[in-house]
């Protein structure tokens, strides 16, 4: 089924240019949602979801802020329809958080000692050669 629209108004111009990409991403997301959990860790099963979510938001963000390829109207439309995550994009505008993987990794309330996730540690500060995959989203380092 095609994605259900939240507003009754038709999407603004430029929508047809981005629609195919968004459809692909939606398809991938559906695939990730229906994937069986065999052979994966419990947390690992959720990683593709976060990754695709990040990817989708990134696409819209890049189009508007970096490449300036869509109008503000279209951008706002995407945010309203929850195609892109507005909270995540809000973080990307801050210095140091430009490549933030997901919002869970900076949530201090979720951790035992009130810290950020391990993926937020810059690679220079992390002892050399240590591979980390954070448990929330499988990120390998989003700030270093």
């Amino acid at each position, binding site marked *: 089924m095609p994605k259900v629209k939240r507003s009754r108004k038709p999407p603004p111009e430029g929508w047809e240019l981005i629609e195919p990409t968004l459809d692909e991403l939606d398809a991938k997301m559906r695939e990730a949602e229906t994937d069986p959990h065999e*052979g994966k860790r419990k947390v690992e099963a959720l990683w593709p979801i976060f990754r695709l979510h990040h990817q989708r938001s990134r696409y819209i963000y890049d189009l508007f802020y970096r490449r300036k390829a869509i109008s503000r109207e279209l951008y706002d439309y995407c945010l309203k329809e929850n195609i892109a995550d507005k909270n995540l994009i809000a973080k990307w505008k801050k210095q140091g958080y430009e490549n933030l993987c997901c919002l869970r990794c900076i949530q201090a309330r979720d951790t*035992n*000692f009130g810290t950020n996730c391990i993926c937020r540690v810059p690679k220079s500060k992390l*002892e050399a050669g*240590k*591979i*980390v*995959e954070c448990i929330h989203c499988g990120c390998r380092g989003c700030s270093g």
Partner: protein
Amino acid sequence: MATAKGANTYNRQNWEDSEFPILCQTCLGDNPYLRMMKEKYGKECKICARPFTVFRWCPGARMRFKKTEVCQTCSKIKNVCQTCLLDLEYGLPVQVRDAALKIQDNMPKSDVNKEYYQQNMEKEMSINEGVNPAGALGKAMAPSDMLLKLARTTPYYKRNRPHICSFWVKGECKRGEECPYRHDKPTDPDDPLADQNIKDRFYGMNDPVADKLMNRYSSMPKLDPPEDRSISTLYVGGLGEKIGEKELKDYFYQFGEIRSINVVSKQQCAFVQFTSRSSAETAAEKSFNKLILNGRRLNIKWGKSQGQQGQDKEEDKEDEKNLEPVPGLPGALPQPPEELSNNFFNLGGAPPMHHPMHHMRHPMPPRGPPHMMPMFIRGPPPPGVRLPPPPPGMMPLRPPPGVMPRGQVPQMHYPSQDPNRMGASSQQNG
């Protein structure tokens, strides 16, 4: 029973609450900056099954997170770390420590008995507020030689390593580099150390690690007293140049009266002979593999019987010290005639010290111990005079005129006679 609601809450086994865990140094890890999580009533104690405050921390980089396994009451009863269940002082399993201290702690292990015991212990401890462990251990605290030898001196962080990655053992570990578990060969299931049980380890029964340690201890070098009851001489080896008769005398006199000390500097050894066999045994026990003088560990062994000793030292008679009479003792007997003086080893003729001894070549064995007794009685003043121990500090150094054999300056026979030593009453009324 612990959670039964009822009228008698006064007799209920309470859930445990604590502020800080009881842990050993190895479990805490090497990092002085430690972040620990506390969870009230997080888990059941593995021994008494009561909910207790669980503490969880990371003992260092690449270590697994450790948490307290048994409650504080249980750990205080046995004086063990809450996580590793090893003794807090020595780091040894409960079984080894109890065997060394000869404690037979009969803690009840089952059901209501156990809960009752726990309850009473907890009450006692809350009243006592003492640092000493409750129960049998509190009463027997003499430090044991065996424990000191077996105990670890440095922390052993290999205990804190992560567990073996079971996926890797099967060849299926997909995590690869970032896998926090150990990619090592798993322990051999045939190894007796592989089946350990927390209850066994805690109560001190059937502990394979303890068995291994005790086997190792019994195969450690030990010095047995020789069967020949007359031997009261210790061989002291590894002297070096610095250690001489004086140092040996200063050390060994604490075990008992020294009959003689013979230093063989050529072979870096000495023979210390005691007057009584028991003092020799005490000295051997306390010094074997333990004595360190001037930074060198001395090799202590039993010497041979008197006669044989004399034969061995034929070439070294120059060094044999004849015993001078102890100066300053009351009632010193007059010197015996020359042919009898200082003749412990039944050697023919004992000329004064500064003359080289040439006569000691007689075959010794047949005239061993049996001849000691007459020698002893007729012997020169030192043995006879030494029997009443000289009162420390009371050293009137009045050399009786006829006694000092060669008119020499009174020599220090005991360290306590040294007037410069602390406690000696100093006078030189000559």
